[in-house]
């Protein structure tokens, strides 16, 4: 049964979660608790905090995340082939090369359009 392989991982996960929760709450229990308004205000190098912390961010961050998803999917497509490289021989290599070539075109486009530049 497959569950015999995954139940131990679930047990480890449960232990990890319980342990992390203990760690996170231990200071609350054992440490002092004397909040003041100054102490609880956001740290801004000693100045009075100005404006909200969440501001507009460059669209670049969003673009990086989208490109990451695409390449991540590519890696996943290549994974099942990876364990069969020798079995499938030249034939498999050619079919995968076509797949990779198409994506390389995208990568070159991305590069030339400056999507990989951080200014």
């Amino acid at each position: 049964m497959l569950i015999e392989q995954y139940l131990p991982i679930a047990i480890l996960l449960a232990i990890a979660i319980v342990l992390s929760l203990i760690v996170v709450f231990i200071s609350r229990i054992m440490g002092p608790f004397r909040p003041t308004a100054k102490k609880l205000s956001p740290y801004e190098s000693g100045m009075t905090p100005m404006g909200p912390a969440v501001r507009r961010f460059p669209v670049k961050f969003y673009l990086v995340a989208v490109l990451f998803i695409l390449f991540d999917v590519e890696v996943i497509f290549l994974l099942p082939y990876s364990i069969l490289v020798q079995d499938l021989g030249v034939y498999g290599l050619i079919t995968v090369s076509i797949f990779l070539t198409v994506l390389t075109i995208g990568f070159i486009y991305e590069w030339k359009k400056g999507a990989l530049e951080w200014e």
Partner: protein
Amino acid sequence: MLTFSPVSVSFFIMALFTIGGGLGVVTTRNLVHAALFLVLSLFGIAGLYVLLEAPYLAVIQVLVYVGAISILITITVMVTRRLMGIEETYNRQWPIAAIISGLLGAGLIALVVAQFGALTPVADVPVDNIEQLGRAFVTHQGFLLPFEVASVLLLAAMIGSIVISRDV
């Protein structure tokens, strides 16, 4: 039959995560919390895949949906301040929507129960099916054409994302 075995107990825990996460997504007003409930729900689905003896699908589910797509959603939601804490949850049409979705849900459940019965055992799946998947991807006996077309789809997505982000 409903019996208490490790599998059935795990199934109910995973189902709880999936449905609870889904409920959280639609009920919370904080968008970042909603995104995190979505992650919980996706984790539940990954657990269900493991119980269906499809571990490859389960880890892919975590890797792509939790590790990539939901990160994109979370980051996007985080930096859009104006969408935070929307006060109005219901509009005037909510009773009609509730009735229609309730009927649809009931119909779906009735259909599934009528078709598949309460609980039927899953078909025997070979545990080590990644090799078959690999063979299916890159040979013409399998799904070679869809596999190659997928690369074109990814290319289109790549170009599209660059075009959109540069126009803004």
